[in-house]
């Protein structure tokens, strides 16, 4: 029942996201003072191009009719036609990029878990020592570091100075991509990893203070077993929600890091679309990423329901 309700809520959110993009852009386009097509294309564009965009945006029609038309197309899975690449479907343009960005994000999440969970647990176990202080300070500095700056620093030291990774590019197929993906993923890890470490540390500290840990200690359960069986599961729980919550920030970071490492994902598409002011492509990217994030959130919701019996009990 809870699973059905959660899935339904997320499905509804996807519908609202679609409505929001369509209605929002159509209204915003009309709110811009002057000729919006001219504003989008800039002063240098030729009159024919501006007229074509006016038609594409439906400015030659009443706004309600235009919204209905865009919604109708969206329902059929048609994201529209690219403006820069004449005639090309937006969906076919951003499809491959989505796969690349999703792959990068997945590797970044995996790396962050590998670094953050043991790191946070260790910080909790050595609490109130110098190591804890340094660890906390380290996470603070790393969280203040925007991912594109982390990307520049890694590009310089790891790739250009030490030559441990290619300075950019993409193999195109999966096992081979590993050589290219790890450095951009590491740049994203500088944000998500410390975040996970902090959360795990706090949750572990909370768990250590609980009576069941004391009871286990009193029963003579070995320390290693207490950490692995009593503290760790409780420390891992908030991480699921945390990763779900940060999916949007991760994608934001990923598109920028991609442009630093010339990874042909959504970021590179976005950069191209920006240079030609290709609104349909950008709208498509916004929609596709938002829907992916909602689906990812659904996954974390379901995972939470599966692993945390308390959620099932309260509903």
């Amino acid at each position, binding site marked *: 029942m809870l699973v059905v309700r959660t899935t339904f809520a997320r499905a509804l959110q996807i519908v609202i996201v679609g409505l929001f993009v369509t209605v929002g852009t159509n209204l915003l386009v009309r709110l811009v003072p002057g000729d919006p097509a001219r504003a989008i294309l800039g002063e240098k564009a030729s009159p024919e191009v501006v007229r074509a965009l006016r038609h594409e945006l439906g400015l030659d029609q009443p706004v309600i009719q235009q919204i209905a038309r865009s919604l109708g197309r969206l329902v059929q899975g048609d994201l529209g036609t690219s403006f820069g690449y004449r005639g090309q479907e937006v969906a076919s343009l951003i499809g491959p990029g989505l796969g690349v960005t999703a792959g990068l994000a997945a590797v970044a999440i995996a790396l962050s878990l590998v670094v953050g969970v043991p790191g946070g647990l260790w910080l909790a176990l050595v609490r109130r020592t110098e190591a804890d202080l340094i660890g906390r300070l380290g996470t603070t500095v790393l969280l203040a570091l925007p991912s594109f700056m982390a990307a520049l620093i890694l590009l310089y030291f790891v790739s250009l100075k030490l030559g441990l990774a290619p300075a950019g590019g993409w193999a195109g197929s999966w096992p081979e991509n590993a050589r290219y993906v790890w450095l951009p993923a590491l740049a994203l890890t500088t944000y998500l990893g410390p975040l996970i470490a902090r959360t795990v540390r706090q949750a572990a500290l909370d768990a250590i203070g609980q009576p069941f840990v004391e009871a286990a200690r009193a029963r003579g359960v070995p320390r290693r077993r207490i950490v692995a069986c009593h503290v760790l599961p409780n420390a891992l729980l908030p991480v699921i929600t945390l990763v779900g919550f940060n999916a*949007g920030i991760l994608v934001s970071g990923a598109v*920028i890091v991609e442009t630093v490492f010339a990874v042909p994902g959504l970021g590179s598409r976005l950069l191209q679309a920006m240079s030609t002011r290709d609104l349909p492509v950008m709208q498509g990217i916004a929609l596709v990423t938002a829907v992916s994030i909602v689906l990812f959130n659904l996954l974390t919701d379901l995972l939470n329901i599966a692993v945390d019996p308390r959620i099932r009990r309260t509903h």
Partner: protein
Amino acid sequence: MSTEITTADINVPGHVAVRRQIQPRRIELHVGVGLILAVVVACLVIPILDRTDPNALVALPLQPPSAEHPFGTDMVGRDVFIRVFTAGRLDIALAALGVLVPFISGTVIGTVVGASRRRLVDTVTMRLTDCVIAFPFVILVLVIVVIIGADTRIPLLPPGAASVLVAVWIVNWTTYARLARARTHVLRQEDFISAARLLGFSQARIVARHLLPSVWPTTATYAVADALVLVSLIAALPFLGAGIQPPTPEWGSIMYEGRGFLLQAWWISFTTAGVLLVLGTGVMLVVDALVSNPRRPRLP
């Protein structure tokens, strides 16, 4: 599974669902404020003391840091030191403007919605904010930037700034509204609000005089962290072909231009990054201190 946000899980970097038991962190607050002030004062004072035009070609290109040019020179021979601290004025001013408007509008909207007893108002606002939060911030901002167009200008601000600011204003009120609403829902249960209701005060008066004074400290804490998010966003935009247009000095565009010269001249990108990182660490320390010791609203 609810979509409620409480102050405990504000989407502040490093503070999702983090609650500290440790007592106030005075040192963190002081060091943090010190670092922020150091960068802000440097940005204000250095361009006054050294009146070199940030766009003037003062020396040979790609000169390493020296006594005369502490951050070296860039690929055309401009002084990076002057450029970085001139850029800081713009970046910090934009971030402040970008935070202030959503902070005010979002806090007011959230409090009004939270205090309202009409379920429809609440549902519609919350679904709308849900939806905005589902988008990657950078991508949503870019779409709005394209629609508004680069030619729109705000007086006193350089080209490219207006569209970014407006986009941020459109997007960012949502988080503040959610936080304010959650806080209002907690406050609604308090006796002093019931008392105000019983006294027959109007809804507007209750919101303005009784709820808002207790709501804004919560959203203000988030605003501090949000300022850092905005500085990072503005600096990231040149990497996606948007943002402040060169040659206006701006942290992001300096780093973006320097990116192609990392091996020959690391100082172009990395001195800029260093200054941004000092500011960022200061902000994070202040946020740490504020979140671990949130200002308790005074109850009458």
